[in-house]
């Protein structure tokens, strides 16, 4: 949670409101333009987006799930959810952060180049983080790591001095815990 000064919509007062990170799970029709509508909403209304994943999840019903991590004051997050709900091909918007326990996972590919000690240290660290090797040459590794975003952040931080070349991250995918639908 961080505190930031925001300008009131129409006034001179400066409010201090806390901003929280929320994970939203959005079920949409898998049709052209839906993603553009969702993203356009965020840029058009000035909302923050931290991570976004999207893919088809139900081929028969032609549905995709979009998972968005966004930040904002409680009032802004409420607005984001309501504005998303207005988009016609959006079926359902769930705020997993408010709804209760949920699992969040992210996958990253991390390429590290190095020799000797660095190379050994990289593979040792990868073992600790349960990252697998998906590509290997005599002077490089590409690791695949899955987990919460902060775990991936930590892994990347450790790889930095060991010859980190580049990273590709998928963004967060999430579902609620238990038998109910998200």
């Amino acid at each position, binding site marked *: 949670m961080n505190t930031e000064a925001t300008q*009131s*919509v*129409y*006034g*001179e*007062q400066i*409010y201090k409101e806390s901003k929280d990170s929320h994970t939203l799970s959005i079920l949409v*029709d898998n049709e*052209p*333009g839906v993603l*553009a*509508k969702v993203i*356009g*909403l965020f840029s*058009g209304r000035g909302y923050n987006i931290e991570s976004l994943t999207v893919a088809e999840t139900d081929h028969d019903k032609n549905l995709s799930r979009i998972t968005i991590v966004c930040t904002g004051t409680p*009032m802004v997050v*409420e*607005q984001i959810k*309501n*504005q998303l*709900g*207005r*988009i*016609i*091909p959006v079926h359902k918007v769930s705020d997993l952060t408010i709804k209760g326990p949920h699992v969040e996972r992210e996958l990253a590919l991390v390429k590290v180049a190095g020799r000797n000690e660095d190379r050994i240290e990289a593979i040792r660290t990868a073992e600790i983080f349960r990252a697998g090797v998906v590509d290997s040459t005599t002077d490089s590794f590409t690791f695949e790591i899955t987990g919460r975003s902060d775990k991936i952040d930590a892994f990347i931080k450790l790889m930095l001095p060991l010859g980190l070349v580049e990273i590709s991250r998928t963004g967060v995918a999430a579902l609620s815990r238990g038998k109910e639908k998200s």
Partner: protein
Amino acid sequence: MSTNTSIIEKQEKEEQKTNNMIMSGADMVIQALLDNGIDTIFGYPGGAVLPIYDAIFQSGKIKHILVRHEQAALHAAEGYARSTGKVGAALVTSGPGATNAVTGLTDALLDSVPIICISGQVPTFLIGNDAFQEADTTGITRPCTKHNYLVKKIDKLAETIHEAFHVAKTGRPGPVIIDLPKDIQFAEGTYKRPDEIKYDKYQPQIKPQESQIEKAINLIISAKKPVFYTGGGVINSGKEACDLMTEFVRETGFPITSTLMGLGSYPANDKQWLGMLGMHGTYEANMTMHDCDVMICIGARFDDRVTGRTDAFAPFSKKIHIDIDPSSINKNIHVDVPIVSDAELAIKALMEAWKKHGGNKNKTELENWWKLIESWRNVKCLSYKNSEEEIKPQYALERLREAIKGRDDVFVTTEVGQHQMWAAQFLPFNKPNHWMTSGGLGTMGYGLPSAIGVQTAHPDALVIDISGEASFQMNMQELGTAIQYKLPVKIFILNNQWMGMVRQWQELLHGERYSETYSNALPDFVKLANAYGGKGIVIEKPSQLDEKIKEMIESDVMTIVDVRVSKNENCFPMIPSGKAHNDMLLSPSAEEIKNAIGAAGKKLV
């Protein structure tokens, strides 16, 4: 035997039916429009919509009004929709046709007007090729429509149009554009009727929650300083909703004020009516809002023109907000009792609950509240200094008000600016759907095309576009449309030779440096009207007003009235930007206003 014959007959009938149902995409458009109750469409032809224009020509079933610019087609459709409560329809070509329509679509989005716009598109195999007159219409219109479609398969066409109508008029109404490539207009397919389509995709909540109604009514019956604050949502909900609301407001005896969009939903000649609220609203309406203890907001959205400074907005009040759009709730102002519902259903539920609880028992407090409101009324905030030499714009509108008194077939549209605010302050709005103005977007040039749309729907009514000389020029090419279709619209120009509202802000906020706001090289409006074959009237002295207004009303052709009004008149009362409701300025003293607006307020629009 007899059953057999009947089966064969039935089969033959079915076959015939299906045969009739096979048609070209262009014919489907016409059929779908007719099946959705559209008999009039405003549009402009072009290469990418030629098949549809051919179908219009051959079917002869749809009345097409040819505008002079696509923006006007959309505004005319808005005027048509708002004055009838039906869906308005427009037809434009690809590329520039669609981009010209964007302003009208955005206007309809912000004012929640149900519009179907069909735009032509280059054939599917050319999309993305930078073809002649190609524009990414769905991309461009994404943020300025309620929803948009690009139809790439003929099988999807009929159901897309039906769904578009459902989306445009269900829930909070809005504009929907259907982008239709030319090859699809030529392609043949099977037509589906509206009743063959399922609309399970979009079903917004329209019924109020019982528990929220209970919470609301508890606030209402215990209120000591209540006020109704209502908006365009009540008018969109329908005439029933307006009647019910009027009944409920009278039953409660509470004061009521409306937004610019809500004017007409409650009769303005009623004693409980406080006038419009907001930046140029009445003193009594704004003071009542500021001091109230319970605010009942129905179908309004706490727009910045209404709230003024948000942290000082009605600081002592509990707020009930009824809106069909959940995203309108808690957007600008935090409310205590949100009710997501259609206005009519919510008012009905509130009325029943009110009766069940036996109404509000705080008789003395309510009397005192009214006494306070009367004292604010006595300030007479709309008074102005009249003159015998020059025409004050307010006086011109007062004389117009007198001239149309008692008539219920008068529709008023406006452009945007000072004249719009004066019209809202001085003209009587006693019925819904008789007042058409661009509220949310503030589109100069809205009034004339909108009036054309209104007059098309109501050929015998008196339709007046209250205008300013600057706004009028933004869509004055539509004079031709009015003449072509014998639409006797009246354009009442309050001509002060300035972009008045901008000039007012320059006077108050920018040290009277009037940068580019003088209306130079104005045409002779009388000659302009004559050039098109209409009537032109000029009014130069206050004493001529009555006679010339009568002449205008009696005219049976398009008529421009050039009212030469006072050049320096400013629009008051006014809540300066960044100020609260109780910080209203009544006097036209510029010095006072300069001091009233702080540096931060200056940055606001």
